Every structure is written in structure tokens, then in C-alpha cells.
């Protein structure tokens, strides 16, 4: 019976149900107790922890389709790959909510705190489906769910011109990208007569040469992914939105929604085109579409444009926006190899990059709280005025550059290993040279922090909670740089996707 199957598979989407209930709870709480908005973040955190608990509980489960009955295939899957990204998203969300509590920027919109946390919860729900979907319908809906929440969040500070402008730009680019993707999806549906990845795979496997219509459709769909992971040339929204949006949301977009986008892209490529895997861990993909070429071009463009554009930026948030574009380029470079090693590199890179980037944005936020500025010139001498933040920022920037002994180096190392295993020398050298370029602008921030003399003599103190949060993000960056064995083991386990 269909109904029975549905009931039986409820426990499989426990985390998603928990997040959806959390969303309702936040809305109801906000309506019922309009005076007690300061409890909202803690309510959200509790919900996230519950969802995390339910997710961890799923780990021991066999991979299985949800809502499977008879010959109808399901819409989402539960596997280690999704498990990893779900935990990553929950962790990032938890940190972002803690960031939000200490953000001065958001205090101006205190009366709308309920909406803020509701929308963040909505994003979590969307990303949960993004990382586990195996159907074009869920793919589209989940991307849109994440996007709508983030459009509003980017323009959340209504009174700020920057923020509402960021919101508008974001929604225009986002809507165009998703429109293009939708058209691509409709073509794929027309070609294959199904929306399920695995069934599409059955059809695509048999094509022996690139097919024009199908290639066009996949390129159109890739636009949607490219926009979500801010790959060049679909990156135009990134700097504007990252600069204009509240810093907490910038950090969230740069890590969580990028991670979800990558997870979706990887699953899409791997499941739909998979025909086999050779003994060295390289995927043998269907000849229907040559992903390798497309990804190499996009990845080289992404990292180069990101790094070179970052050189000229004077706003630290904008600079970090371009740097996050460049990082997406490095990760795409690993994906280009279409191998298990490449996948491992991406997984490791995301943990490292997530920690580091969140930390960097958090310190930018704290500095903005105190000085009201994100301009690099206003960072002069801050390293002496806020010693701990200065040191933490230096460590994080060194890690973003990818220098030892920080976690960033491990991420880069894995990208290099996966590229050189192929071996693809040119790409490796391009990645290396790009890192040198990135060194220049990261070091520029350090230069302003320490080598330039402060314009005004002042001292800053930070509450203990904020200091602890900074340490929580910085110390693992050093530890993972020196001891990354566990990270590796976890990464290897997370590679397993349903059906493989």
C-alpha cells in the first residue's frame, strides 16, 4: 500500500521534518510572544541540535529511497554523501545564528528577528533537500526554496541602500539563472521522459556520442549550478550581494549555500552520467556530454577571475567575496578530475574552507561592530588594538592562502593530490600560480592590520562569548593543519553515494 510505504519512510526524513517543525515553531513563537524575541535564536539553535541528532541517528541506516513504492522511484535519498553535507550545513547554521546574536547590524532590525530566523530555517530545509535530491522536480524546488529565503535575507536591512540593492540584484540574477535552468530541465524531461536521475542515467548511458539537444540542456542546467556556487561567468551577483548583505548572511551564503550547490552538482554529474568506475577511482562517464572540458574551462576562469578581481578591492567583505569565488574555482578544479580523489579533495576542502571563511567573516563582522567600517584602510593598526582578533585574523588569512601549518594548506594539498594523480600538470600549475596571486591580497589585509600605523589611538574589548567563538573557529584551523588524519577518514566515508 502506498500509504503504508509513506508512513514507513517517515523516519527516513526525520531531520527534514524536524527542520520544518522548527520553522513553524519559530513563526508561532514570534507571533505568540512578540516581546521575547531574544529567545528566538536559542529556540532555533535547539531545533538545529535536534535535527543534528536525528541526522546522526540516520547514519547507521542503509541507504534507501524515501517514498519508494512499486516501480515509482523516489525523490530523495539518504546516503553518506548527503549525511556529510547535512551535518556541514547544520554546523554552519549553528555558527551563523551565534554570529547573528552578536551582530550590531541586525540589532537595527530587532523587531523583525522572527522573520530572520524563520528564513534561515527555510534555507536549512532547502539545502537539506538540495544535498539529497535525485529528482529534477525536487532539485528545482529545493534550489528555489534556498534562493527565496536568501533573497530576502540579503535585503534584510530594509533601511540600508546597500542591503536592499543587494537583495534586488540577487533576485534578478537568481531568477534569470533558475529560469534558464528550468528550461534546461524541461528539455531533459522531453528527451528522456522522466525526472528521476537514475532513470535519466539509464537512457543517457546508451548514448555513445555527444548529443546536441542534450548537451544544450545540460549546459542550461549548469547555469543554475554555476550561479549557486558562483562560478565565473555566473558570478556577477556575488561581489555585490556579499558586500551588501548583512555579514552573517554573506558568511552563510559563502559556505552553506555554496556547499549545497556543490553537493547537488556532484550528485547530478555522478548519478546521471555514471557508467562505471575504474580501479584508480576515476569515473567512467557517459559520452553524452563532456563534463571534463566544461568544468576545466569554468574552473580556470573562476579561480583566475576571482583572484585577480580581488586584488583591486578595498572593501574587505567584497575582497572576501572574490576570494570565495576563487575558492570555488579550486574546488571545481578538483571536481574536474571526475574521480574519487577529487571528490575527497572537495569534501576536505569544504570543511577547511567553511571553518576559515566563517572565521574571517566573523572577525570582519566584529570589527564592523566596533568601527562601523569594512574598508581596508580603516583596518590600519587594528592588530595592535585588538590583539587576539588580529592574531586570529592572520591565522585565518594564512589558511585561506593555503600556507602551512594551517588547515587551508591541507585543502590545497588534497586539491593538488587529486589533480596530479590524473595527472594534469597545467591545471596544477595554474592553481599554484593562482595561490600566489591570492597571497597578495590576503597579505594586504595582514599588512593593514600590523604594518600600517593606526590612525586613531583606541583600545577595543570584546565580550568573552565573542572571543570564545573566534577561538572555536581559529584553533581547529591550526589543529587540522597539523593533524588531519580524522578529517581524512571522515571524508573517505562521506564519499559513498546511493547506488554505488
Amino acid at each position, binding site marked *: 500500500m502506498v500509504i503504508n510505504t509513506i508512513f514507513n519512510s517517515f523516519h527516513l526524513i526525520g531531520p527534514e521534518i524536524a527542520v520544518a517543525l522548527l520553522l513553524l515553531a519559530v513563526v508561532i513563537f514570534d507571533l505568540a510572544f512578540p516581546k521575547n524575541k531574544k529567545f528566538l535564536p536559542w529556540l532555533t539553535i535547539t531545533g538545529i541540535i535536534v535535527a543534528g541528532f536525528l541526522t546522526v541517528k540516520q547514519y547507521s541506516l542503509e541507504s534507501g529511497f524515501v517514498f519508494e513504492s512499486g516501480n515509482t522511484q523516489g525523490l530523495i535519498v539518504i546516503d553518506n554523501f548527503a549525511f556529510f553535507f547535512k551535518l556541514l550545513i547544520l554546523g554552519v547554521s549553528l555558527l551563523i545564528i551565534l554570529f547573528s546574536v552578536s551582530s550590531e547590524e541586525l540589532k537595527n532590525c530587532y523587531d523583525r528577528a522572527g522573520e530572520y530566523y524563520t528564513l534561515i530555517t527555510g534555507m536549512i530545509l532547502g539545502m537539506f533537500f538540495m544535498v539529497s535530491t535525485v529528482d529534477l522536480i525536487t532539485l528545482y524546488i529545493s534550489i528555489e526554496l534556498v534562493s527565496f529565503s536568501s533573497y530576502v535575507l540579503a535585503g534584510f536591512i530594509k533601511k540600508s541602500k546597500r542591503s536592499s540593492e543587494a537583495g534586488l540584484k540577487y533576485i534578478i540574477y537568481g531568477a534569470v539563472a533558475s529560469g534558464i535552468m528550468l528550461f534546461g530541465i524541461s528539455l531533459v524531461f522531453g528527451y528522456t521522459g522522466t525526472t528521476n536521475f537514475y532513470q535519466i542515467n539509464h537512457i543517457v548511458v546508451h548514448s555513445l556520442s555527444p548529443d546536441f539537444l542534450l548537451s544544450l540542456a545540460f549546459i542550461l542546467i549548469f547555469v543554475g549550478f554555476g550561479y549557486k556556487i558562483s562560478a565565473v561567468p555566473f558570478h556577477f551577483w556575488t561581489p555585490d550581494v556579499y558586500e551588501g548583505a548583512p555579514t552573517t548572511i554573506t558568511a552563510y551564503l559563502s559556505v552553506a549555500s555554496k556547499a549545497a550547490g556543490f553537493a547537488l552538482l556532484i550528485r547530478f554529474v555522478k548519478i546521471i552520467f555514471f557508467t562505471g568506475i575504474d580501479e584508480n577511482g576515476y569515473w567512467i562517464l557517459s559520452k553524452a556530454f563532456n563534463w571534463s572540458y566544461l568544468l576545466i574551462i569554468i574552473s580556470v576562469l573562476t579561480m583566475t577571475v576571482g583572484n585577480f578581481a580581488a586584488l583591486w578591492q578595498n572593501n574587505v567583505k567584497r575582497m572576501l567575496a572574490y576570494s570565495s569565488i576563487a575558492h570555488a574555482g579550486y574546488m571545481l578544479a578538483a571536481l574536474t578530475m571526475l574521480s574519487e580523489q577529487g571528490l575527497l579533495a572537495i569534501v576536505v576542502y569544504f570543511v577547511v574552507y567553511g571553518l576559515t571563511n566563517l572565521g574571517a567573516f566573523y572577525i570582519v563582522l566584529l570589527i564592523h561592530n566596533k568601527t562601523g567600517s569594512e574598508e581596508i584602510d580603516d583596518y590600519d593598526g587594528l592588530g595592535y588594538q585588538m590583539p587576539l582578533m588580529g592574531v586570529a585574523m592572520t591565522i585565518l588569512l594564512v589558511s585561506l592562502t593555503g600556507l602551512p601549518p594551517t588547515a587551508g594548506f591541507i585543502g590545497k594539498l588534497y586539491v593538488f593530490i587529486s589533480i596530479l594523480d590524473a*595527472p594534469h600538470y597545467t591545471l596544477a600549475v595554474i592553481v599554484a600560480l593562482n595561490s600566489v596571486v591570492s597571497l597578495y591580497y590576503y597579505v594586504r589585509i595582514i599588512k593593514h592590520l600590523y*604594518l600600517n600605523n593606526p590612525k586613531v589611538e583606541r583600545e577595543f574589548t570584546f565580550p568573552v562569548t565573542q572571543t570564545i567563538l573566534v577561538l572555536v573557529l581559529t584553533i581547529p584551523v591550526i589543529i587540522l593543519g597539523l593533524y588531519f588524519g580524522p578529517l581524512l577518514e571522515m571524508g573517505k566515508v562521506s564519499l559513498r553515494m546511493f547506488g554505488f
Partner: protein
Amino acid sequence: MENNIITSVLLFVPLVGAMLVLLFPQKNAPLIRFWGLFVSLVTFVVSMVIYTGFDPSVSGFQFVHKIAWIPSLNITYYLGIDGLSILLILLTTFITPLSLISSWKSTGHKVKEFTFFMLLLEVGMLGVFLSLDIFLFYIFWEAMLIPMYFIIGIWGGKRRIYASVKFFIFTMAGSLVMLVAMIWLAVYASEQLGSFTTNLLDLYKVGPNVPHNIQSWMFLAFTLSFAIKVPLFPLHTWLPDAHVEAPTAGSVILAGVLLKMGTYGLIRFCLPLFPQSSIQFAPYISVLAIIGIIYGALVAMVQSDMKKLVAYSSVAHLGFVVLGIFAFTEEAMQGAIIQMVNHGLSTGALFLLVGVIYERTHTREIADYGGIAKIVPVYATALMFTSLSSIGLPGLNGFIGEFLILLGTFKSSVLGNWWFAVFATSGVIFAAVYLLWMYQRVCFGKVTHDKLNKLEDLNTRELVTLLPIFVFIVWIGIYPSTFLRLSEVFSNSLINYIMKI
């Protein structure tokens, strides 16, 4: 092989010392200075313990300390010492306390940070010389850039920011290319040996089997990184900037130890990992080395800034070292190793002396001095002595190294042409010209500026920093075998190994 913890002790004493510096109160500058000095002296004592236990007749690594680190990638924490590294480790632990003493007065502000970075730098340098795992090596190699960046950038001269960023980017560009090559090699090892490995001794077995054309690229990638550090002409342009802008202690460390990491890398990695390519490229690199020798000397001649003059003389001296390395004879290799030490001592002392006088007058322009021999006789004597050592006067250290290198180059079958030696010899003459000319303009003649009459001579602290160096300058000059015997077995076995292939 039994694990010997003392190498790790050597590495961790300055590291722990540096961490503890952070706990000291910022205001108590003398305490912090004494602590820094104390830590570096303890490190020196540890290195002396290693020296006394070192057996020069054994080929291969001693005091090995090996712990599994990242088992899944076969990365190990692997330290060890052989005839090549022992000298450089002693040099490092010897120079660091001296440069700390030398900066007693000159780094007036932010003493805590300064001491912290100096000790961290020592950790990095020791780590580079001790590591027998390329992953570990790379961590130290890169991590060392950060303290050096800050030392130049915070305590440096007027154009310090430009110099520090240039230094950082030059070195980083080279090392990332090396990283690519290292990983490629480790991946290649996984095909050859069955597992991914970063263990240098295992890679020694793999390297020579790399197909020829790829080996050339690998060799060039490694060499690029090391050549930037040496610095080999034409990659030397960061050096004068960095030297001129760095504070005295920074210059001393930079000249004394940091540059040696480049030549050390060439000997430790390039030669044994890629012997065929090394021999193939030896003539080209030797030509660059000789251009460096002559170019460095000529440019040094026309410098008006004393520090810049010494900086360019470094380019020339290290040209000799590189020439010695790529001559592939035992004498030249021995000479190159001892010349690395010599250059550390002589150039270090020269930078100290320039720093001493700069502290008093705040100028390094040669034209601002004249006739100071009468006013500060002790200083003038010290400067003379150091210059002579740098020139390579027989009886002092420089002579031994240069003589061995020239002899080896002359006999070299790989280079096969005595013109290399002839051109290199001209560098020795040039060195005499620019140093003595500088000396003459600064110390002899009439006192040109009234201010100079008030110049104070060397004080006790400065003498304390210089005298130990002078002792070794004479020691190496008169009885070099104390030092040569340490590296003898190493040089023999390395050259034999390469020539056999």
C-alpha cells in the same frame, strides 16, 4: 633504527620558548629579551650535545626521530641529522642568540612580538634542516616565511612594506611550484612503491627512475624554488630590498641562515632526487652562478649604501656555493658546504657591523663616513678583519671555502671546462676591490663630517656578539678539518652516488 628524541628537543625548545614569550607582560622588555636569549642559548647547548654525539664517520642519518603522523598518506614526523645538516644546525643555533643580542637596543618597540617571531623563525630554520619528510619540510619551509615577513615588515626601514611583500611573494611563487612537484613525486612513488609516501629516503629510491623528460621538469620546479631562496641570478632581486629594509637582526638571520636553506635544498633534494637532470643542467646553472658572482661583485662595487653592498656581495658569495654544488666533485661539495658556513659567519658579522654604526648615526651611506678609523679604532679593526674574511684572505675562513670550490670546479668532469674556474676566480678579485674600497672610504682619510667625532666605539655587548664569530672565522681559516671532517663522509657518498648513476 632507534628513535632519538634529542632532535625533537632541539626543535621544541625554541617553539615552547616562543609560546611562553606570549605570557610575559608586555612592559617588561628586559625580561623578555633575557628570556629570548636564554631560550636560544639552551637551544645552542642542545645542538652542542648533538654535535658531541655526532659520529662523522657514519654515512646516513643519525639521531633519527620518526613517528607515524598521517598513516593513510604515509606521512611521517621524521627528523634526522647527517654531515650536511649538522653544520647548518650549529650555524643556526649559533647565529640566533647573537642576532638577539645585537638587537638589544635597536628594536625599541614591540620587543615581545620581536622575540616571539625570532624564536619562531629559529624553529622554522631548524625544522627545514632537520626534516626528512618532504611534507614536514614543506610545512617548515613555508611557515618560516610568516615570521620573516613580520620581522621585515614591522621593524624594518622606510620601504619595509614593499620589501616584505616582495620577499613573501617571490618565495611563495617558487615554493608552490615546488609543492606541485613534490606531490607529483609522492603520487609517482605510489605507483613505484605501492603506496603514497612523503618519506625522503624512500623518494631517493624513486626519483632517479622518473622518466627523463618529466624528471627535468621536476628538477626545474625544485630548483626554481631553491634558486629564489639562494638567490641565484636572475632571481635575486628580492634580496637587496629585503636586506636593506630588514632590521639588523633580520639581516643577520637572512644572510646567515635563510639563504643557506636554498643551497641546502639543492644538495638535499635536487641532487639525490634527480641525479640525471642535475648533471644535465649543471653547466647552465653553473653559468648562472658565475654570472651571479661577477654581477653581484660589480653591482656591489657601485653601491653607495653599505648594507646594499653587503647584500650584493651575498649574491656573489652564494654564486660560489652553487658553483661548488654543481661541480660534482668531492672537493667542491666540501667547499660549498663549508662556504655556506663561512658566508653565514662573515656576512653575518658584516651586517652586525653595519648595524652597529647605523644605530649610532642613522645613516648607511658610505659618503656620510670618512676617517673613522682614528675615532673608533676597535670598530675599524673589526670591520677590517671581517672584510678580509669575506674577501677570502688565506688564514681566514673564506679562503678555505673558495679554494676548495675553485679546485673542485677546475677538476670537475661534469663541467669539463676550466673556464668556469677562471671566471669564478675573477669574482674573488672583485670582492677584494669592492670591500677594500668601501673600507678605505669609510675608515681612512680625513674625518669628513663633524658629527663623526662623537662616534662611540664598540661597547661590551657588541664585542660579545662579534668575538664568537671571529673565533670561528680564525678557527676555520687555520684548522678547517674540525668542520670539514663532519661533512666529508656525506660529500663522498653523495658524489659517488650521483656519479654512479
